[in-house]
């Protein structure tokens, strides 16, 4: 499990999990899990398109998550945001169906892009991965205060000239960057689970923003490590473990919060 060829995998997965946990914190406080689902899924045809054109996969993924950001924010100005997200997603997936009909891409590759295949991260993949992770974490931290303010209270944010629309686009860009980091390593569906699950669990544990951010990243990294280990031991796909552990984490967090509230009210009653 800790052989030489697995070291790259552990490093890559840790980077991805950290980025997803940090970005996921904002996904959760903005209630934007649909965008977090739609962007990775609509970036996945980008990989097929890149193979078709013959450029690097990362470029295709970046381009398509860019299209996703543009679609969601542009269409969202004309109507309901969830409708805009859904329609941008299906349009990009439709393009994916078109590209896939052109390539002779074998199904295993598609399965890996969707559900993740953490094995097989080469040493040459680590440098761009680390760079992109650094950029997206730096961007999130740079935006931390305005983004937090505009997520919690858009009206208040506008009074200090933080435009909710600009923040919305920047937020989507951050999610898109995280997607580009994570998609080639863990697959489109895992990116989503990692962005939503750990951060939701973190929010049930603390209401302090900075603590929430770190707890979210920590839970995300632990989830990924445990999933890789379990997947290695059982030979089952890693996607299953990430999804299951994320849901369990959230349930545990909810239960913990509930127990705490019950205990508190009992304490009050006894006084």
């Amino acid at each position, binding site marked *: 499990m800790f052989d030489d060829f697995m070291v790259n995998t552990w490093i890559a997965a840790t980077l991805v999990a950290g980025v997803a946990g940090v970005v996921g914190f904002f996904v959760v406080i*903005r*209630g*934007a*899990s649909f*965008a977090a*689902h*739609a962007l990775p899924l609509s970036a996945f045809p980008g990989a097929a398109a890149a193979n078709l054109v013959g450029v690097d996969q990362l470029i295709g993924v970046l381009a398509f998550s860019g299209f996703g950001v543009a679609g*969601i924010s542009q*269409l*969202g100005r*004309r*109507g*309901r*945001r*969830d*409708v805009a*997200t*859904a*329609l941008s*997603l*299906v*349009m990009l*997936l*439709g393009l*994916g*169906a*078109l590209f*896939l*009909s*052109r390539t002779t891409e074998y*199904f295993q590759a*598609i*399965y890996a892009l*969707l*559900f*993740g295949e953490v094995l097989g991260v080469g040493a040459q993949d680590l440098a761009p991965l680390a760079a992109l992770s650094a950029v997206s974490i730096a961007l999130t931290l740079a935006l931390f205060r305005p983004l937090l303010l*505009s997520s919690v209270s*858009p009206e208040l944010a506008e009074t200090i000239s933080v435009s*909710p*629309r600009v*923040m*919305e686009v920047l937020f989507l860009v951050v999610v898109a960057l995280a997607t580009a980091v994570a998609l080639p390593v863990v697959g489109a*569906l895992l990116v*989503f*689970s990692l962005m*939503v*699950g750990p951060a*939701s669990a973190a929010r049930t544990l603390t209401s302090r923003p900075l603590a929430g951010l770190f707890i979210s990243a920590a839970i995300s990294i632990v989830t990924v490590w445990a999933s890789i280990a379990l997947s290695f031991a059982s030979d*089952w*796909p890693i*996607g*299953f*473990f*990430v*999804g*299951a552990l*994320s*849901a369990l984490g*959230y349930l545990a967090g*909810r239960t913990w919060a509930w127990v705490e509230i019950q205990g508190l009210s009992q304490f009050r009653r006894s006084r």
Partner: protein
Amino acid sequence: MTTLLSLVVAPGFFASEPVRTAAVIGGAAAIVSGVVGVFTVIRGQSFAGHALADVSSAGGAGAFLLGINPLSGFLLMGVLAATSMELVRVDRPSERDLVTGIVTGAGLGVAALLLYLNVTTSSTTGAAVTIMFGSMFTISASIVPLAIAVGLAALSAMGVLYRPLLLSSLDPNLAAVQGVPVRLIGLLHLIVVALAVALSAITVGAILSTALLIGPAAIALNLAKRPSVAIFLAAVIGVAATWGGILLAYDSYEWTGGHGWPVSFCIVALIFAAYVVVAEIRLGSRRQPEPGLKPRPREGRATTAG
């Protein structure tokens, strides 16, 4: 006239058996999705609508594994997911999407596992792709009777739910005062969505399922004020887009020299284009407010994505 027709319709279109099956099944899926979708859009539950399609495909993979009718697998998983999405009690509206997301993540994880087990036991490597993108021209005849029954059940459930659902979608507080069980109605609505989505996911694929659920309904709600009119329009638009897409896909074999565009791409492109055009026109007509009137604030919080 015949030459004019053959310009639009490539020869052999009406005689082709797969085209006829696809037109009938796709049209039926479009009608059910359009009718159900109007409420999904009004209630802002596009994410749940899409997520149910993804999650129900896990049931499809499970049915493959157990060797039972795939449609019953889709339905079972969809209803299970819909119930768990609605049963987790949430305090804030923004948390609803979160719960949807977590159920989806878990469901997709199960899908990954079942697909993997399928691959290792029976080497149906194409299952992931078929389930994701569907293939309208290869619908198996064995699911047709059950599919028709489920479609009719979903439509009649919408008929029964119509009034309380409309009231509790537009004004939940008023509905509660009037004695409408808002939570139960919400649960029943999502179960009907699950039925409709499972039906279209198995016949036309997960992508088209979302496109047909959300697209025609959103276009119709941009065009019509009254919900009953919007429901009718959504069904018509859905069927038109489906048939138009099938025609386009069939014709594209001629234009592209045997390379053809996939049906799902054609239908989605038509729906997307129609939505953009209609939304653009509506935005344009709203840009000139009457003098002295303040422009109406946009619906929904500006910061909530998706």
